[in-house]
């Protein structure tokens, strides 16, 4: 069985781009990824992709080229990019195809997401009474987590300070202005204990990746990055998840724990070997919790790692080096692939001002989303 390599990456800048549709941003990213690999769309043997609010990915062929390739739409909320990657990985690893593209893109209206409970199999009452709000869930999850692990809420502002500092060094980021932890902590409270600047915002952007059989990667690039492990998991009975009218008293590991464990196992890599990590930070509590859920550190250790700078770009466990969701916003379909794009830049040594020093060799990505799903990747050079 062959391995899988990423040989081309492309991105449309995240944030707000007035007058440019989500589909146009996707085409921009796809062309950039193809150019990066020195390929044309007619070379692609398959496509997987998706967006949440910006149209069907398979319709992009009208602009990219009507070549007859199988292009399959993927829709898994925040894990849309991860699911597209899993599908591409399987298509190549199985020997079905040698070379293809994944595309994630989105363009959301301003303000928090408003989701229809009916799409989640929940009665209309849940939305009408104001419980179908993602920001609330994250407030309650971190509230319980701080209580269980005896952590102080002050660290939540420090995480956002790092995100904006990294975003300021990333030309593709949306939020490029640094903020102090004090300013972040003093901002309006959205869902206690999380303030306005501790949350990411729905936004716009697109990412595309060209993948191929690992043994052919050097035909397209002299710096291939290998997809060593990729895994997706949904929730188990007893895990506490977004959009849950109830949860079980018996606690179970969340999908992040199981997806990251499976991705590391597939790669034959230990979490302690990770040189750079992009983990879901839809708000700063998520980064805090996901640091431990992914196995990058132990529960309760995060406060010291964050306050001593270990998770900064120059630290020994750099996390969200491109500014994460907080500085980039969250175009749902593109967000997971942004993380992979950033890790490819890091492993190539091409991340410029936000490059992690010391020639990182192992990268890790993690997304989490409704209704309790997680997708993770382990990348090496």
């Amino acid at each position, binding site marked *: 069985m062959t391995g899988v390599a990423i040989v081309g990456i492309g991105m449309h800048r995240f944030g707000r781009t007035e007058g440019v549709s989500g589909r146009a941003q996707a085409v921009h990213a796809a062309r950039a990824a193809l150019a990066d690999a020195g390929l044309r769309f007619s070379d692609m043997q398959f496509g997987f992709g998706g967006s949440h609010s910006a149209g069907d990915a398979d319709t992009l062929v009208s602009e990219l080229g009507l070549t007859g390739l199988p292009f399959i739409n993927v829709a898994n909320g925040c894990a849309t990019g991860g699911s597209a990657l899993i599908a591409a990985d399987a298509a190549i690893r199985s020997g079905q195809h040698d070379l293809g593209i994944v595309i994630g893109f989105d363009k959301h209206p301003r303000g928090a997401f408003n989701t229809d409970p009916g799409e989640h199999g929940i009665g209309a009452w849940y939305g009408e009474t104001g419980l*179908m709000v993602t920001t609330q869930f994250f407030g309650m999850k971190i509230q319980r987590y701080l209580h269980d692990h005896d952590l102080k809420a002050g660290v939540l502002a420090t995480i956002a300070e790092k995100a904006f500092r990294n975003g300021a060094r990333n030309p593709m980021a949306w939020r490029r202005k640094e903020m102090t932890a004090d300013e972040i902590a003093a901002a309006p409270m959205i869902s206690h204990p999380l303030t306005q600047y501790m949350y990411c915002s729905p936004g716009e952007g697109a990412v595309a990746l060209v993948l191929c059989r690992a043994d052919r990667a050097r035909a397209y690039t002299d710096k291939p990055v290998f997809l060593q492990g990729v895994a997706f998991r949904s929730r188990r009975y007893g895990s506490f998840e977004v959009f849950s009218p109830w949860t079980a008293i018996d606690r179970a590991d969340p999908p992040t724990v199981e997806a990251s464990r499976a991705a590391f196992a597939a790669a034959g890599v230990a979490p302690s070997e990770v040189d750079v990590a992009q983990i879901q930070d839809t708000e700063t509590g998520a980064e805090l919790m996901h640091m431990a859920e992914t196995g990058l550190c132990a529960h309760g250790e995060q406060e010291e790692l964050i306050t001593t700078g270990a998770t900064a770009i120059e630290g020994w466990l750099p996390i969200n080096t491109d500014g994460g969701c907080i500085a980039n916003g969250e175009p749902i379909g593109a967000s997971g692939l942004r993380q992979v794009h950033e890790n490819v830049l890091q492993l190539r040594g091409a991340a410029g001002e936000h490059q992690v020093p010391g020639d990182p060799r192992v990268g890790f990505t993690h997304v989490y989303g409704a209704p309790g799903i997680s997708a993770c990747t382990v990348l090496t050079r």
Partner: protein
Amino acid sequence: MIDGKRTVDDTLFTDTPEGTALRGSRCDDCGAHTFPTQGGCPRCTGSAMREVPLARTGTLWSWTVQGFRPKSPYTGTHEPYGVGYVELTGQLIVETRLVETDPEKLTIGMPMELALVPFRDDPDGPVHTFGFVAVAS
């Protein structure tokens, strides 16, 4: 109408000798509970679910305060509202509105009980949903 009050969805509620309770379901095979009712058991994957009233009292498991008015499909009034999960001993942890909106007065572990609370004003009068309030100790 539940207890003479208009509610967002009467099927969420059931009568008990102690008063109105949330209507849940319990698996005959493994004992798992759900809210609202459903036909399949999320724990053992069977389909032997039976309707049961859920406990009217519990303890606060986690909480937050909704700081902005949610977009549609929210239909409630503009006032801030508390949101929490309340553990109903031996059954499940239910998500609920909280009557209390002052973070200083909310603590994980505090005892709470079910109430029918107004959340929206319709031309015909207030519409209620379930909420939990602190039990005076």
